[in-house]
């Protein structure tokens, strides 16, 4: 009689051979597979379910501060996230419009199901790319390098590069109140074996926690008691290629908690698994559950929440800001105290999920693991949070896996080139102690890393590598030419001090009149004067928005951009000092104890990276500088 096994150990067979295999078809996996396939390599994308490809199991939005800039970087690098978002968004806004250019970013609400369908179509149209359903359980290696992946059913795929983008699936455990059970997100099964395989290979694994709020029935919401948050109607889009998609504009709704809500939560804190000890994983600080917010900010009388549509053809609304792991009856009790939610019915209750991740300091800056050649990881497995962070890492892991097979230079982005450069440098250098989310302040050169210029920063490089189309490159060139032409025109155009249009404009802006004429470009440099106003007084037909935006930014921020570039140059001096690999830093007694341990463990590639390791101080870097210098002065044995 045959004994049935949970995992097939006998019916093993070779099911296929690929250059690159990707485990997991979430946001990271999709971009990874697309990038490898675009570079012409035979690519396999494995997903536990064809129904969960490109799923957005948490909020129904893409972008936001810093994250929105990542989406544009993904587009500039030839990725799909921006275009798919543009085609499936049901509301889009530009955030921080009143603030400086560096902090502006877009956010779109997406129709989740439409997003998944659209991305699946992109994957299926991509040449060299196969998609298969199944659970990967084992990483196969030969002589310390990746050679394949085995599925739970026994199928083996040989591959030369393997990218793991397992999201929150590895040993996933959903927790709600006192109830906990093995599960992936949104009711999908967890990946029960894959992280054991990583452990067996010698990787240090950790456990993180994240959560998602309830989805509620639109028909039970009273929007009249909430504040409407409409979208922008000016035709914003993430992708630099405007698809002129005619999209609906569905509002979100704002309301807030009150003392009664807080009492309902605090009275039931003993039933919260986070505090009872059921949840062991470390959760994110910045996206805290509502019970966390009450503990941390006990004096806030209110907390905001947004009701966001999950799609066009569903009644489900996402309750942004109400993530919780409290049991369902408590969720009902506190939600019904909130204005507009008095009669709310929950469709999917909120839950917390714990999962295995891999400490990202075990990665190189290409996202290849230091331990196993040819093995890459991207997304939540690296301890990050967020669709955008995942997609960006996936793209770079896929591109680097492919580039290494093609024998070409890897694509490693600097901190001065992209938020993705900051993200990956932070991960592999500093590691993570909680799920990593991208913030504007994490980028020290943020004035260079704007939403408007991701194409100028990255498209040419992506084009040269074969990651993006010639079309995209030509479009960038045309844009830059147009900007230059318009700038030339403004520089050449003088406006007389007594020009009535100018006088009117200055009067309207409550600015002093000029006593002599001025070049249009110089006028544009003044605070308060923008390109559109300038065109009006010149009677000049304005260039398209994306050109106008460049002119406004260049005129206003030129001085600061130059200063930031000077800072970059200064930092480059340290980046260009390579540190020998395999150094035992414990012998350098001038270094702090923590620095000695961290440097030995992380083995930074250069002094700049070394300086960003948590616990390595500038004084330590100075010591390393002098130490390096002395190492280089290998003096010959004396003869005198």
């Amino acid at each position, binding site marked *: 009689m045959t004994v049935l096994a949970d995992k097939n150990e006998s019916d093993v067979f070779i099911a296929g051979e690929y250059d690159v295999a990707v485990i997991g078809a979430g946001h990271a996996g999709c971009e990874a597979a697309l990038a490898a396939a675009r570079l012409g390599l035979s690519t396999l994308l494995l997903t536990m379910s064809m129904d969960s490809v490109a799923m957005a199991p948490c909020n129904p939005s893409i972008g936001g*501060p810093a994250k929105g800039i990542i989406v544009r970087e993904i587009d500039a690098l030839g990725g799909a996230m921006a275009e798919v978002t543009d085609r499936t968004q049901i509301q889009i806004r530009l955030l*921080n419009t*009143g*603030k*400086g250019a*560096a*902090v502006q970013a877009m956010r779109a609400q997406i129709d989740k199901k439409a997003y998944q369908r659209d991305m699946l179509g992109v994957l299926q149209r991509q040449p060299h790319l196969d998609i298969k359903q199944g659970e990967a359980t084992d990483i196969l290696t030969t002589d310390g390098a990746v050679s394949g992946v085995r599925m739970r059913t026994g199928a083996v795929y040989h591959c030369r590069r393997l990218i793991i983008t397992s999201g929150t699936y590895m040993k996933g455990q959903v927790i709600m109140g006192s109830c906990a059970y093995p599960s992936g997100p949104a009711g999908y099964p967890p990946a029960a074996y894959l992280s054991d395989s990583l452990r067996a290979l010698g990787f240090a694994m950790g456990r993180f926690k994240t959560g998602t709020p309830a989805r509620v029935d639109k028909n039970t919401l009273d929007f009249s008691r909430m504040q409407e948050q409409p979208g922008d109607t000016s035709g914003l889009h993430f992708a630099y290629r405007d698809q002129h998609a005619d999209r609906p504009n569905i509002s979100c709704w704002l309301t807030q908690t009150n003392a009664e809500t807080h009492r309902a939560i605090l009275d039931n804190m003993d039933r919260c698994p986070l505090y009872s000890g059921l949840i062991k994983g470390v959760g994110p600080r910045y996206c805290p559950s509502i019970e966390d917010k009450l503990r941390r900010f006990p004096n806030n009388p209110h907390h905001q929440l947004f009701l966001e549509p999950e799609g066009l053809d569903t009644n489900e609304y996402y309750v942004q800001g109400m993530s919780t792991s409290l049991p369902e009856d408590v969720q009902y009790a506190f939600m019904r105290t909130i204005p507009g939610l008095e009669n709310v019915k929950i469709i999917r209750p909120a839950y917390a999920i714990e999962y295995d991740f891999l400490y990202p300091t075990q990665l190189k800056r290409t996202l290849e693991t230091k331990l196993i050649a040819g093995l890459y990881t991207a997304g939540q497995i690296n301890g990050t949070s967020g669709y955008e962070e995942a997609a960006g890492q996936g793209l770079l892991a896929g591109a680097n896996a492919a580039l290494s097979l093609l024998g070409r230079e890897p694509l490693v982005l600097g901190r001065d080139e992209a938020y993705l450069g900051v993200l990956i440098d932070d991960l592999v250098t500093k590691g993570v102690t909680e799920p990593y989310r991208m*913030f*504007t*302040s994490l980028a*020290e050169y*943020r*004035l260079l890393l704007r939403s408007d210029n991701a194409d100028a920063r990255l498209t040419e490089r992506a084009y040269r590598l074969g990651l993006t189309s010639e079309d995209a490159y030509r479009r960038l060139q045309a844009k830059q030419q147009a900007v230059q032409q318009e700038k030339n025109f403004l520089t050449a155009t003088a406006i007389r001090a007594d020009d009535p249009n100018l006088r009117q404009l200055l009067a309207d802006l409550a600015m002093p009149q000029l006593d002599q004429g001025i070049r249009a470009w110089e006028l544009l440099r003044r*605070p308060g004067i923008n390109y559109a106003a300038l065109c009006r007084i010149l009677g000049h037909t304005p260039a398209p928005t994306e050109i106008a935006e460049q002119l406004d930014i260049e005129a206003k*921020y030129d001085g*600061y951009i130059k*200063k*930031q570039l*000077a*800072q970059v140059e*200064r930092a480059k*001096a*340290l980046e260009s*000092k390579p540190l020998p690999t395999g150094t035992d830093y414990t*012998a*350098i*007694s*001038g*270094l702090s104890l923590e620095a000695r341990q961290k440097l030995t463990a992380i083995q930074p590639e250069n*002094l700049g990276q070394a*300086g960003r390791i948590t616990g390595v*101080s*500038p*004084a330590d*870097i*100075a*010591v390393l*500088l*002098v*130490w390096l*210098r*002395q190492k280089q*002065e290998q*003096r010959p*044995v*004396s003869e*005198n």
Partner: protein
Amino acid sequence: MLGSTITAIATPPGSGGIGIIRISGPQALSVLQQIFRPGRPNCRFTPRHLYLGHATTPDGEEIDQVMAVYMPAPHSYTGEDVAEIQCHGGYVVCQEVLAAALAAGASPAEPGEFTSRAFINGKMSLDQAEAVIDIIEAKSSEALKISARQLSGSLSRDITNTADALLDLLAQLEVAVDYPEETDEAALADSTHTAISNALDNVRRLLAQARSGRYYREGVLTAIIGPPNAGKSTLLNALLERERSIVTPIAGTTRDTVEEYYLLNGLPLRLVDTAGIRDTDDPVERFGVERSRQALADADLILLLLDGSRPLDAFWRDLLLAHRHRPLLVILNKSDLPVDAATTAELAALCPDAPLLTLSARTGGGMEELRRAVWDKLLLNASGESLSGLINDRQKAALLAAEDALIAADQHFELFFDAGLLSIDVQTAWQALAEISGRAAAEDVIDRVFQRFCLGK
């Protein structure tokens, strides 16, 4: 610890009372044992005890009677095992002991290597290392005191406090960048503006100290000018006769400008006698005149010595007019003849800001007044407020960079408030300050510090 054992002569080249050969590294004791034969047998080299004996070649050939000391790690200058041999100070003796140390397995030290090892081994911070050079190069005991103060970290503390305030400010600006909708911009702009003004004040105060610091460290370049026979040489000689504490001829000066050091109550004056400054047609002399003019142009202080009994001629009148806004003291040398009242009146009219001093180079009368006048002219703080550290060129350049950035930040408020942009200037200012004390690392800083070291330190 760095693998090799290094050695060098730690005392200045040339003849002196004693010469010290320093050996640092894991083999220091072994090297010492090979080249030092103690007076008493079975010497165990108790740490930091002096032993009398003989330096020898590794083959046992005697070189000199010497004292030796062994300082095991980490309680030594470099933080490594260190041995020092004190021999007689002749050039040949020192070279022979050094050769013996090299033959015993040590390798020659690079300039500054002892100090850089001390730095790598955590024995001193960057600005402390820098202070070591300043101490070596100190031209006066006052400079020495200030450098010693810097070695103990007081400059670091002053700068660190200002840098820390900027870092706090940066943190607040970052929060505003991440959460613009939750930021009270008006309040933040206010507190930011105050913090920047305070930092700017501090930086400017340190810059003012930088000037005084340079005077103490390098000496005040003092040009003594005046017509022939007004008594310049007498003044010079009188000064040097009275205090011969430091008299160092400076290499590279030619005979036409004689440079001497004179210590005026701890303040080193670099006296340049510009004898040749006069219109001349003599091509040979013209070269000297050029040098004198250059010295005059560079001078921190000009002492114009006149014969009070004679009227001013056109040449000196023009020269006075040209330099009357510079730190200038007019000294009337008291000759036997009475002072010409018309001359005094003309001088007072020509340069009302220049104090008129009388001096008797012969008797030495009037020196105290001269000292006070010099103090006042150089805007030195005579009240004795302690300078927190000599500020050298590197530190001064960094302070100037910080000042520029803070001025830009300060002006920012006239236009609008943008936390993201402001943080760029604040970051630049912080970086510059942090580099002074080594709290931000930059390679050129390390270069500038360690390149100033000479061999044996």
